[in-house]
């Protein structure tokens, strides 16, 4: 076999990989990228989806005192407590306790010492969860892991088969068709996509193939004992009074810095072997590591401080921090959001390109061939516009379902999947072009309508939030409306430019 032929075979198999891997995993990747992009604003979405939780600002010490009091009342015998002190982007005091292996959580208002009643909702966390495992556990996580591998393979094979797009990009020779949109978006987002895919991949494989913990540790708690250089104490079952937590806060702040405590964790409360751990916030540096200080829960003595991380552990958490983007405040969040949206558009353009290229080829083919092609087109529509509609419908469900409905959080998620299923049926029922524009129009209406339905059903409508400076809630309304207007324009553009673009 001589060289040119080998090369030709190589290019051809790279093209097959890019085309077919890109199509099948493109469906998964679009869903993963879109929900991941939304999950950047997980705290804001959760805050927006629980409009009952609005309290005025308090000091950490006041919050901790209130949480301590309530936890002693609600769960004196719990296995552990967790107190989440109010932070910039999650301003609500939350207490969680574990009892009989079950987790209970409440929101508190530190000013009045009252438990806040909020509607049940997964909030923005649903998007983050769908992003990590497609809401289907280990199997979903494997699909996500494989998708990350195929994404990197698609980048490599894409560069192999379309080398010239880099030159075209920098010579500003930008084609105004789907191929142009796909390659332009690809070149533009290449650094971001490489970074986000690789960091996501290592996080996924950390959970998928836990060979190191299995081979090197007898039980998983040993890992954390090693990582934090502190062995958890075992319950002694002799009662003892827990030291007031607010007394420990100044001591912890000596170790971790003023106003830096994010979590307070109490193990074995009410026992002689109780420990109180203060965990520092993670949002002021890239590496997602929480420095910690642990105190004896009875004597109040400092047992261990952990602020110097093993460089290997730190390196891993640095890459994890790059993925979850908790650092850099809103500037970084918006940059990630924008880059995520462009990546979604790039994937969507690739999916559309697949069908556009083959539209003429199937026209004269057999009936079966036509059906195969039709199914691919319908799935494209379901994945792109159908998912956008389902995400918007999830936010609508949060406002429209009765507040005190039983199993409300699950009902919202059911609405999400039902709407997605309806979009699938719709995509098969309508001719492709109509399905595209109609679904895009539904999504546009849902997104632009979000501020209105919000203003009608809650007290955090734009007229109130803008006046009171609650930009976390107003931001969700405004962003949704803006995206909705963008989609309305896209619908118009598709209708007008359908002939011009179908190259």
């Amino acid at each position: 076999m001589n060289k040119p032929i080998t090369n030709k075979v190589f290019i051809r198999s790279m093209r097959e990989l890019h085309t077919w891997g890109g199509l099948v995993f493109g469906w998964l990747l679009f869903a993963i990228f879109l929900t991941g992009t939304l999950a950047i604003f997980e705290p804001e979405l959760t805050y927006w989806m629980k409009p009952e939780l609005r309290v005025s600002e308090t000091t950490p010490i006041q919050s901790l005192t209130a949480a301590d009091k309530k936890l002693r009342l609600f769960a004196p015998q719990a296995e552990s407590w967790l107190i989440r002190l109010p932070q910039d982007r999650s301003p609500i005091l939350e207490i969680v306790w574990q009892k009989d292996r079950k987790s209970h959580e409440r929101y508190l208002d530190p000013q009045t010492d009252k438990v806040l009643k909020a509607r049940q909702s997964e909030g923005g966390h649903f998007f983050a969860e769908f992003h990590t495992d497609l809401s289907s556990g280990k199997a979903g996580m494997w699909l996500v892991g494989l998708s990350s591998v195929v994404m990197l393979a698609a980048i490599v094979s894409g560069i192999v088969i379309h080398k010239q797009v880099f030159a075209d990009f920098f010579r500003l020779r930008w084609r105004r068709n789907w191929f142009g949109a796909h390659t332009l978006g690809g070149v533009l987002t290449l650094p971001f996509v490489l970074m986000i895919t690789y960091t996501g991949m290592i996080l996924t494989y950390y959970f998928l193939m836990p060979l190191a913990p299995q081979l090197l540790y007898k039980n998983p708690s040993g890992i954390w004992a090693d990582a934090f250089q502190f062995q958890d104490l075992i319950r002694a079952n002799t009662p003892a009074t827990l030291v007031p937590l607010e007394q420990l806060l100044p001591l912890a702040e000596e170790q971790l810095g003023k106003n830096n405590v994010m979590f307070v964790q109490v193990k074995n409360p009410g026992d002689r072997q109780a420990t109180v751990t203060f965990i520092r916030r993670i949002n002021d540096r890239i590496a997602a590591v929480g420095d910690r200080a642990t105190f004896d829960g009875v004597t109040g003595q400092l047992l261990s401080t952990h602020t110097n991380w093993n460089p290997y552990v730190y390196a891993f958490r640095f890459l994890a921090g790059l993925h979850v983007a908790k650092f850099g405040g809103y500037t970084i969040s918006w940059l990630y959001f924008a880059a995520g949206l462009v990546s979604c558009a790039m994937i969507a353009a690739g999916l559309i390109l697949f069908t556009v290229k083959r539209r003429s080829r199937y026209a004269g083919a057999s009936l079966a061939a036509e059906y195969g092609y039709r199914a691919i087109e319908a799935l494209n529509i379901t994945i792109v516009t159908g998912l956008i509609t389902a995400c918007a419908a999830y936010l609508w469900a949060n406002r429209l379902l009765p507040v005190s409905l039983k199993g409300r959080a699950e009902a919202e998620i059911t609405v999400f999947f039902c709407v997605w299923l309806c979009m699938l049926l719709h995509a098969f029922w309508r001719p492709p072009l109509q399905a595209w524009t109609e679904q895009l129009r539904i999504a546009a209406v849902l997104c632009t309508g979000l501020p209105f339905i919000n203003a009608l059903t809650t007290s955090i409508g734009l007229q109130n939030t803008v006046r009171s400076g609650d930009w976390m809630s107003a931001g969700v309304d405004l962003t949704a409306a803006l995206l909705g207007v963008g989609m309305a324009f896209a619908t118009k553009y598709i209708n007008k430019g359908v002939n011009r673009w179908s190259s």
Partner: protein
Amino acid sequence: MQLFTGETVRYIREALSATGQPQSAAFILRVLAAIFGGYALTYSALAALVLLLPLAPIEVVFVSPLFPGLIHLGALLWAFAAPTAWRAWQDIFVMTAVCSFCALAAWLK
């Protein structure tokens, strides 16, 4: 019954071929090599890595996840880049065998 099966197979083949690319057996073999061969290679290479890296256990736990995805990526790319599908299977199998041997040797040591 046989007629029905034959018809269904023909139908599916036509539906697939409609979208253009040749759906040869070789292509499917490459796909299988990429997914299952890739998984086997990733698993055995990771096991060898975990047991042979000269680092403290806690360091291995956090360093080892950096590699399996890339190993899987390499296997997947080779499954498609190899001159023939047979060659792809052969290479991935040999690599898996070598890695498993290293891992076993380190485990039994």
